[in-house]
């Protein structure tokens, strides 16, 4: 496995061939455009340079906790005009997937209110809860987790109010072999501040996978089904002419490589240069890396040059 190359260290000829090697950019959002603390400086210039070079831009985030409208406003604040349909997030991807398989039936969902709203607005019928703390005994537990309603899919994403009764209830629905297990974001740890990670949805969904012995349908990065959905939607027939950009080795690079895309890791978010260089899993090693998307502006010649 070749070591990833920093895009600013490419020769003039390599830069040209890199820039000519893709038509579409799929870009992560958090850690690439902004972090928990601040906006990443001058990234808007990178994206506008890509657009001027005729590249199609699509944003693929695992974050369904904020709405697409909030996300569009945030883009506007850093000077980028992004249309809602350019943004893919797990709630929307799950809607597309379910429509694609003509899903009919009840869904039991463990997710945030904005996530649930997306599914409800798309016309799906959701069950959730218990949304309050239960009486602490087995009789009360039984009352809250056994349910005779014909649930045909369990959907799990980030839920700040996830509780054990919700997990137990989801597992019971999954005893029915016809009930699908669908996951959105599957990050095992979620960064909330510098150096501070909290337990991510992936660790909870792995409880459901292990208890039920099920292979999930994964519609967040690095999910295979998400990749198929995107490739199908944009009719991508040459995956190698897509560049996946992100700040995470497993979710972004892993997703891109699995889909056969080229991959560019930016060091503006959740991965340090040391972590990148220490990565040994070939599935997570990107083709290229950069300090941030501002570097892309530089190699495309659209951004501010270094001072002469």
């Amino acid at each position: 496995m070749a070591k990833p190359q920093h895009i600013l260290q490419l020769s003039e000829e390599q830069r040209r061939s890199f820039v000519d090697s893709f038509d579409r950019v799929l870009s992560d959002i958090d850690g690439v455009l902004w972090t928990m603390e601040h906006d990443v400086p001058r990234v808007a210039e990178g994206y506008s340079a890509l657009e001027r070079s005729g590249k199609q831009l699509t944003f693929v985030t695992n974050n369904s906790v904020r709405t697409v409208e909030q996300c569009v406003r945030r883009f506007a604040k850093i000077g980028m005009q992004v249309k809602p349909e350019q943004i893919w997030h797990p709630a929307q991807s799950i809607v597309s997937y379910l429509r694609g398989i003509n899903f009919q039936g009840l869904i039991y969902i463990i997710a945030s209110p904005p996530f649930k709203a997306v599914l409800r607005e798309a016309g799906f019928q959701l069950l959730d809860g218990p949304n309050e703390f239960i009486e602490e005994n087995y009789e009360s537990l039984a009352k809250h987790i056994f349910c005779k309603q014909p649930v045909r899919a369990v959907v799990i994403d980030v839920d700040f109010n996830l509780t054990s009764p919700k997990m137990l209830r989801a597992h019971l629905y999954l005893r029915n072999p016809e009930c699908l297990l669908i996951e959105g974001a599957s990050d095992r740890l979620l960064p909330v501040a510098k150096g501070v990670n909290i337990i991510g949805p992936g660790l909870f969904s792995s409880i459901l996978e292990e208890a039920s012995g099920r292979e999930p349908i994964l519609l967040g990065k690095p999910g295979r089904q998400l990749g198929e959905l995107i490739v199908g939607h944009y009719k991508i027939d040459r995956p190698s002419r897509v560049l996946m950009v992100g700040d995470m080795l497993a979710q972004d690079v892993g997703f891109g490589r699995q889909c056969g895309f080229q991959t560019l890791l930016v060091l503006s978010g959740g991965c340090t240069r040391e972590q990148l260089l220490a990565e040994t899993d070939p599935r997570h090693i990107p083709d290229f890396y950069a300090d941030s998307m501002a570097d892309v502006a530089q190699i495309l010649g659209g951004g501010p040059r270094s001072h002469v």
Partner: protein
Amino acid sequence: MSSARHLKTMSEKERDEFFDSFDLVFCDCDGVVWYPLRDFIPGSADALAHLAHLGKQVTFVTNNSISSVKEHIEKFEKQGQLKIDEHQIVHPAQTICDHLKSINFQGLIYCLATPPFKKVLEDAGFRMTKENGTGIITSLQDLHEAIFGGDSVEAVIIDVDFNLSAAKMMRAQVQLQNPNCLFLAGAADALIPFGKGEIIGPGAFIDVVAQSVGRQPTTLGKPGEDLRRLLLDRHPGIPPSRVLFVGDSLASDIGFARTSGYQTLLVLTGGTKLEDVHQLPDGHPQMPDYLVDCLGEMAPDKPQPSNSYSALST
């Protein structure tokens, strides 16, 4: 022994040899002596009386801290007419309490467990921090307060918590980043029998916290390694081969006991069905040595088990 022998298929002589082969019995309670949280299983009191009559020592090893030791004793007396001593009952609240005493622990505890479990610790004089985020979390600030607010503690304990939440687990995770903060776990079953099937057990949630902090807890409930060693140390005069472990769970009882070198007997009145045993390949680490339909088969006359187990399901 590569596959399980059913007690009822054994000759009189083989039965006698079996009963002569152990001096000490470790016996699970829920699904073995009584239906989980309910009444005695017919015949089990006779079987326990028979074991006492034969001069066997019996210690009950349960993962259920919902009932106190005192309530266990009362149940044995009232429903089984059996006189059981306090020291014959081993359950996670007690083993954890004993462990904390043995290391002279003085600090504040974050305890994710049921009220009866916490009461055992409280009665022993241990201090527990109040729950911080019991409300519904509607914002990142709420989440932040639930996880990072509140006292810092010197021990985190996880057992069955009916209202275990992501925020509580994250608070535990944050506290456990301090390498001096003890990490203790009680009942650690991955799945527990409940109603007509199994539900996710506390072990699954303990694993999530363990994975998120990158350290393993001291586990003083079944099938924990630390409980296993504690049981081995309790009876130094009795070799493991002369101990019979009786339980209804392949993972939490049989597999657990086989690691210690105990003989094992599976009862089919709880979470395991005969076909589950048949699916195990010969020599599997969870293959029991012996099988009975119900504990009562160990008594001289063998009553049939009733089929009333499952009342908790709806």
